[in-house]
């Protein structure tokens, strides 16, 4: 569910029957390229546009499993799978991923460490929340406010995320249209993500992605320091899977790890992760994660098939990393790739394209549109980290 050329390609290679469900804008393209397709408006949900109608449209294709690719298709896939598996809770579980308030409460109930959080409707409530966090942190007069994160209930990744560092930030950064939403205390520690492929309630493959800079650069698999925590990460992941009742599919949670080995739960999504993580997984481990996602989403796939598909999580010597390039605000006219990059042994490819002269807006939603990505491949995680930190600060557009 959702339009993705790489996903279509992966399905074709796998020789599994499929049908793409996405906005009707893609109808013509799908027809021209012989892609089985059903047009659907995921934004419309009413008595004439609901999962029962969608199921009917999909019947001619013999569909019995729905796989969400993007954030806005998660509850639709959940609703369909509820019907296919005749289990209402499948939809409820899908809702966990789509409402960050419910998600956090569920994690809390499962005994995972989460930040202090609250659902808010007004700016005053945000002020009150920050006051209470300050109070709990025993703030003295003149000390800085505690950081608070404001997030929409249902949005992918960093979209709509605002970091409020001070009380005055609340008045300056928060918009009326942000409400209702949730606020959350700042979690300390190093942020990273996991991608867990789950079949029949068990994690069949767990990847750990190390973030060099959130929203810019990451690499797979994580460096030795983070990989050495794999047992406690796996343990936390298993608790999460159990608590959320996830039986089939893939999840992509973000965690925070502090020096005393405490893991805090950030949030979790059940769709293809951003930041080219799937591409990196494919390069590092040599399997196609989209195919993995589809296999794991299908209850009828056998244990043997699953086992044969995923490689070992250990004994991997290839590290794949990427850094996304955003032009700095202002006028840009030219793409300039430094020779130093082209000559680097780790450099693989880039997808940067030359701009037509124009202005880059300085207000961005989330991290905005990046202009392309640079891919690296090598075997030394330290060097990978250095390269990624170095190139995220280089101006490729002048």
């Amino acid at each position, binding site marked *: 569910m959702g339009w993705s050329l790489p996903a279509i390609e992966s399905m074709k290679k796998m020789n599994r029957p499929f049908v793409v469900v996405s906005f009707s804008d893609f109808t013509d393209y799908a027809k021209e390229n012989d892609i089985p397709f059903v047009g659907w408006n995921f934004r419309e949900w009413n008595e004439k546009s609901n999962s029962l109608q969608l199921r009917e449209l999909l019947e001619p294709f013999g569909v019995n499993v729905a796989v969400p690719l993007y954030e806005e298709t998660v509850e639709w896939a959940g609703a369909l799978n509820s019907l296919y598996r005749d289990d209402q809770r499948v939809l409820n579980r899908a809702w966990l991923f789509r409402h960050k308030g419910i998600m956090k409460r569920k994690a809390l109930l499962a005994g995972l460490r989460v930040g202090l959080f609250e659902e808010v409707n007004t700016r005053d409530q945000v002020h009150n929340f920050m006051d209470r966090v300050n109070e709990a942190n025993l703030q003295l007069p003149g000390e800085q406010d505690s950081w608070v994160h404001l997030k929409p209930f249902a949005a992918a990744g960093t979209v709509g995320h605002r970091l409020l560092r001070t009380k005055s930030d609340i008045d300056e950064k928060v918009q009326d249209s942000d409400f209702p939403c949730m606020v959350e205390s700042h979690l300390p520690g190093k942020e990273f993500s996991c991608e867990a492929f789950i079949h029949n309630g068990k994690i069949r493959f767990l990847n750990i992605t190390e973030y060099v800079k959130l929203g810019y650069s990451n690499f797979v698999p994580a460096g030795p320091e983070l990989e050495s925590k794999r047992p406690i990460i796996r343990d936390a992941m298993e608790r999460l899977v159990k608590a959320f009742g996830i039986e089939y599919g893939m999840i992509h949670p973000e965690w925070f790890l502090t020096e005393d080995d405490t893991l805090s739960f950030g949030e979790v999504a059940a769709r293809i992760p951003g930041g080219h993580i799937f591409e990196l997984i494919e390069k590092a481990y040599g399997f196609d994660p989209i195919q993995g996602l589809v296999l794991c989403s299908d209850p009828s796939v056998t244990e043997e098939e699953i086992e044969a598909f995923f490689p070992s999580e250990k004994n991997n010597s290839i590290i794949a990393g990427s850094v996304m390039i955003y032009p700095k605000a202002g006028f840009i006219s030219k793409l300039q790739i430094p020779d130093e990059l082209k000559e680097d042994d780790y450099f693989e490819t880039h997808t940067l394209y*030359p701009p037509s002269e124009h202005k880059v807006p300085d207000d961005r939603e989330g991290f905005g549109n990046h202009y392309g990505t640079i891919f690296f491949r090598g075997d030394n995680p330290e060097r990978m980290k250095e390269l990624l930190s170095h190139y995220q600060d280089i101006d490729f557009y002048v």
Partner: protein
Amino acid sequence: MVSTKTIPGQIKKTFLENLTRLYEASPIMNKEHTTKMLSSIDILSDSIEGLSFLFDHIGQVDAAGFFKNTMWEDPARLVPSLVEGTIGSGGHNTMYELMSELRMLAIAKGKLPGNKFGSSRAREFIEDVMVNNIDHVFPDASDEKRMADESVRNKVHLLFSFMLDHIAVDGIKERLATEIELICLQRPVVTDRVLEIIRTVKEKVTLDPANKIDRRLQHYVYAVYYPSVKARELEPGEYREFLEKADKPQLTRECEELGFTLRDTGLSSPYHAILLHRIANEPALLKKALVLDSTGRAELDKHEDFITGLITRTIHEDTSRSCYGLARVLERGLLSRQPVLSGLQRIMAVTLHPDIAAAIRKSRPGSVLDEKSILLAECLGILGQPIGIGQGWNPTCQSARGISLWSSYSPGKLLGMVETAAKTNNLTFRFEGHLIRSEELAPGLAAVLDYNLDAVSIVLVPHLDKIYSEMMKRAALRGEDPHKWVNPGMYGQWIPTGFISAYNDLTNTISGYETFLRTFYATHHPDFNGGQNLAYPNPVGIFLTSSTGKLIGFHAVSILRVRKNKGVTRVYMLNPNNEGRQRWQENMSPTVAGNGEIAGESSLPFHQFASRLYAFHFNPSDVSEPGSLEKVDADEIKKVYEIARNTWGESYVWTGEAPGVHI
């Protein structure tokens, strides 16, 4: 020198991986994979080793669908003359174009089957590209200014060196010879480009006098570098010393030898300038050195002192190209026209405006001559070769056309403009009862002037361009093509008062095309206008089309004359675009020689020219008699209509009558 880099780390491996992915992927994923390949190609094309790696894999690249759904998909549809612009544009276009050339090379060498496109056509394509990109074919002979981005330029240089290593230079020798001959046949005022080609031939190509093609090239190398037996032995400095002591028979011989190369090629060398200086006050020798016709000889006798002064003052090694201009000025009898003589005298006396002096200096940075002498010398070329005038790299066809028209028909007026602009850095034109002063106007079409121009154009074009743009502005929104008013305002009141345009710029449509065509035939074609010749050249507007007939834009040319040649009625025109030979469509290429063209003219069969025309002036009395339009042959009109409709006409909505219906 071309810098060639080493190929880092895993670039080849990554390239092959992405190539495999592209090969295995269905077409929907092409873009994703090709984008990643382009980043490897970018690096590989920085070295000969990389190019050779790409060349080795070009068959697989093609088979994998790299060119699919791009404008490079079908080799048979590619146009050699467009390569230069695309390859220099940077980014993905440069990379695609480069890969396309490598594919062409592979087809030419029989390494890759080109389907319908055979290896001989591919070879021809590459030769065309090489000739068009002569600066890049021989790496250090490039015109550095042309391409802004150094890394792109380096890639292009490398590509051409690579191609040169893989395809024998002999293959392009003939093309080079033809190129040089056809440029010279047009007798351009500015000869930099052809001199550059000749220089590269001299430096990079081994010539064997036993070979016929080599002899053609050698002829030009000699004309420019060793125009006489003595010149072959002596450096210019030594040659000057030799001439000072030379006796009459020796001088006569030099005059004869140098005179021959000058008139045969239209090219002059420093030796020519040195010789003219030496014999400036010896009319009998001057006549020989310039190989003057009877008018020229009479002019020389009549204006002996003036010409001696003019040569002494202006003809120098740095201005040697004016030797040919001088010969032509004399043969046109221009000095016997009082406005020309006094115009030149006035320019001799003028004090240049500092900005004008600086602009002239900028165009000739190394010259030891003062700016005014340079300007004066260049006036000789402009006056002597009116249809050898070009617009250089500037979008100023109107201004170049104007200078050419004035040089032909009002040379005195032209010199007056040169003098005024040189003195005041301003030109004033009268337009519909109002004065337009260039110094008060913002820049016109050419925001930045490219200085690869003659000095007269450097002085005049910035002003003419502004004035033309201002006139166009004032005449806009009148519901008719503004050129109806602007052409007479710009070029002179001798432009006939009738004006007809097939293009309606308010509605962006083509309307009344049959009447338009019939009017053109009835006023211009000798079979329908009573066998009349044109009195004055006609500044007309044409649709500029690509080699496949697609609309590119509007262009200004002048119809100089209409004549029958070898049984075909042809239009002879001035194309200010520096080069009369551009293909306008399959089977439609103006020629510059072989069909009765005078040096500088290009020509097309009448109906082909008519099919590109969109606006022209005419004398209304020529079509005032009832039935004069109906006389025009209906089949002829239909033929033109079909050509127009199926080429540039596809870009427009057509309204009004269709041919054969009514008038």
